[in-house]
C-alpha cells in the first residue's frame, strides 16, 4: 500500500495528466492559457516547467484548430489531451469532433485516440455560457466515448483510461466539484477506471437511482434522507461513463428493485435519461413495478440569478420527492 494523500477532484485530474505524461512521452496537452498561466482553473499549474513547451502547448483562441490538431497528432500515434477552457466552448469544435474525430475509424480504419476535456456544469452562478452540460449534444454520435466522473478517484482513473483509449473520449469534469470533492488517494499510484463500467455508490433494494457527474452528491443526500426518514433503501448507481453505457449494471439493479429514477443536471428534454429509459424498458420492463421517472434541469438555458439557477437545477428535495413518489407507487 502506498501512502495516501487527500486529493481534490481537481488535483485528481491534474495528477492523472501529469502521471500519464511522465509515463508516456506521447501524451501532451494543448489549449488556451494552459501553459504560462497554468490553466483558467490552475489545473495545469507547473506543467510547462515540468514537461516543456513541446508538450504543454498554449494555443490561440481556436477550439476548432485545437481539436483538429489533436486529431492529426493522434493519427501520428501521439496521445493528445485537448482542453476546452469551459466545456461550453466546445461548440466551435463541433465539426472537428462530430465529423472528423468520431467518423475517422469507421471511414478510414485510422483511429483518433484523443481526449477532449473541460469544465461543465452549473451551480456557480456563471450564467448561460459557462454552466452547460453538453453530453446530449454529442451522445447520438457513434464513434465518441463520453465520461463524467463524480469522485476524485474516478476523475483520476477515468482520465488515465481515457488518455490510453484508442478512440476519442469526451471527458466532462464538473467545475462545482473541483475543490469541493476530496478523497484519500494513493500517491503516485496508477488508478485506472475502465470506460463503460458503472459503480454502485450505495446499495439498496427498494429503488434504483441512476445518476452521474455533479448530481451524484444531491442524489446520495436524498437517499440518506429517505433511509433515515422512511426506512427505504435506495440503490444509487453512478454511471461514470455515458458511452459506452453500462446497461448491464442498470438492468441488474432495476431487476432487483423494480423501480427506477434517473437524475441528471442537463435539461430534461432529449436528455440522457431518455436513452436509459429506453434501455430499461427494452431489457427490464417485466421487472418494473412503477413507471420510470426522471429528475433533470428545466428545459431552458441556464439562468444567472441565484433564485433562477436554483430553480433550474435539480435539488435534493426534488430527488427525494420523486423517490418517495416511486417508492409509494
Amino acid at each position, binding site marked *: 500500500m502506498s501512502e495516501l494523500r487527500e486529493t481534490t477532484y481537481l488535483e485528481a485530474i491534474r495528477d492523472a495528466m501529469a502521471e500519464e505524461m511522465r509515463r508516456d512521452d506521447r501524451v501532451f496537452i494543448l489549449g*488556451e*492559457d494552459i501553459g*504560462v*498561466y*497554468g490553466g*483558467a482553473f490552475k489545473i495545469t499549474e507547473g506543467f510547462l516547467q515540468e514537461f516543456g513547451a513541446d508538450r504543454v502547448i*498554449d494555443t*490561440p*483562441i*481556436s*477550439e*476548432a*484548430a485545437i481539436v483538429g490538431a489533436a486529431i492529426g497528432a493522434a493519427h501520428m500515434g501521439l496521445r493528445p489531451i485537448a482542453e476546452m*477552457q*469551459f466545456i*461550453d*466552448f466546445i*461548440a*466551435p469544435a463541433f465539426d472537428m469532433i462530430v465529423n472528423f474525430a468520431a467518423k475517422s475509424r469507421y471511414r478510414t480504419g485510422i483511429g483518433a485516440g484523443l481526449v477532449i476535456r473541460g469544465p461543465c456544469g452549473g451551480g*456557480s*452562478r*456563471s*450564467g*448561460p*455560457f*459557462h454552466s452547460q452540460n453538453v453530453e446530449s449534444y454529442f451522445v447520438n454520435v457513434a464513434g465518441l466515448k463520453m465520461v463524467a466522473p463524480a469522485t476524485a478517484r474516478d476523475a483520476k482513473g477515468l482520465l488515465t483510461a481515457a488518455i490510453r483509449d484508442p478512440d476519442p473520449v469526451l471527458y466532462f469534469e464538473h467545475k462545482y466539484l473541483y475543490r469541493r470533492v476530496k478523497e484519500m488517494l494513493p500517491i503516485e499510484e496508477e488508478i485506472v477506471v475502465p470506460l463503460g463500467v458503472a459503480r454502485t455508490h450505495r446499495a439498496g433494494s*427498494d429503488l434504483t437511482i441512476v445518476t452521474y457527474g455533479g448530481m451524484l452528491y444531491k442524489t446520495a443526500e436524498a437517499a440518506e434522507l429517505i433511509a433515515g426518514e*422512511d*426506512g*427505504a433503501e435506495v440503490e444509487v448507481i453512478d454511471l461514470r461513463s455515458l458511452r459506452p453505457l453500462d446497461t448491464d449494471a442498470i438492468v441488474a439493479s432495476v431487476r432487483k428493485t*423494480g423501480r427506477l429514477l434517473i437524475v441528471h443536471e442537463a435539461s430534461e428534454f432529449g436528455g440522457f435519461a431518455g436513452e436509459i429509459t429506453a434501455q430499461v424498458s427494452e431489457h427490464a420492463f417485466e421487472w418494473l*413495478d412503477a413507471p420510470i*421517472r426522471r*429528475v433533470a434541469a*428545466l*428545459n*431552458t*438555458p441556464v*439562468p*444567472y*440569478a*441565484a*433564485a*433562477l*439557477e*436554483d*430553480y*433550474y437545477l*435539480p435539488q435534493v*428535495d*426534488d*430527488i427525494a*420527492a*420523486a423517490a*418517495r*413518489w416511486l*417508492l*409509494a407507487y
Partner: protein
Amino acid sequence: MLLTRGLEERLEILLKQGHLVGSIYRSLGQEATAVGSAFALGAGDWLAPSIRDMGALLVRGLDVRDVLRQYTARGTSLCAGKDNTNHFTVPELGLLGPISPLGTQLCVLNGVALAFQQRRQSCVCMTYQGEGASRTSASHEGFALAAALGLPIVVWLEHNRWAFGTPSSRESAVGDWLDAAAMYGVPAQSVDGNDVVAVYAAARTAVDRARTGGGMTILVAETYRMLGHAQHDAQKYVLEAELEQWRARDPIDRCVAVLSHMGASGAELDGIRRTVAAELDQAVDEVLAEPPPLADDARTRVYASANLDAAVPWTRGPVPGYGGIAPHVRLRT
C-alpha cells in the same frame, strides 16, 4: 470615460460586498477605444460591443442602472436575471450584445448590416473584438463574409496585448496586428487606442466610408489591458515596467490634459467627476433596493408563446396521477 471607469469600480466594490457573483472584465486603460468610437455613430446605427466595451454601451445611451441591475441579477434587469456581464441586446439603442463564445458577434452583426443593405438604409454597424477573439473560426468567417459582401461595418480589433493569460504574440505570428487586419482585403488602419480623439477621428472616417457604400473597415486599437483578465487573475505574468509605461498613457489623464490645454478649468473637471460620482451613488442605491427575480421566472421566455414555457418540474408541482406525493411509503411485501 469617467463614467465607465467609475461604474466598473462600483461593480468591483459590489462584487467584494457580495452583491454580485461572477467576473467583471474591466476596461481600465482601454476606455478611450470604446467611448471615442461609439461617438462616431448616429441614431439608427447599430453597435455590438464586446465585454470590455462598457464605455460604448454608455455612449449609446444604456442607463447605468440597467448595467447595475444585470450584474447584480435583479428581476428588473433587461434580461430578467437570466444573463450576466455586458451582454446587452437593446434594439431601441442599436445594441447587439455578445455571447460568451468569442468571435461569434461579428457574424451576427453581418446580418444586421445585410438588413440595412436590403432596406436601402444608409445605417452602419460597428463592433469590437480582442485580438484573441479574432483567432476563432467564427471571427474569420465573419470577416470574410463582411468583406466579400461589402457590408457597412467597422470592426475594431482591440489589441490590448493579452488574451486572458496569453500574450498577443502567442495568438498570432504577426508582429503588427495591422497585418492581421489587412488580410481580409478591406481598408485597415492602426490607431492609438488610448487617445480618445484619434479613436473618434478614425472611427468617423470609417463610419463615413461605410455609410457611403465603401464597405468594411478594420481598425486596430493599440492599447493595454491594465488589470488581469478578471478579478481572479492577479496578472503575475505582466511586467511592472510595462504597466508603468502604459499607465503614463492613461486615456483619461490624456484627455484631461487636452481639455486643460483647450482651457477647461480644474473646477470644471472636478465638477464632472462629482456629477459622475453622484449619479453612480444614486444608481447603486436605487438598484440594490430592487428585488431579485422570482424563481418561477426561470421557466419563461424560452419561446415566443407562453404556452411553450418550461413546465413546472413534476417534483415541485402536483404529482401526475396522484394529486400529491403519497404521505407514507408503501413498500412492496
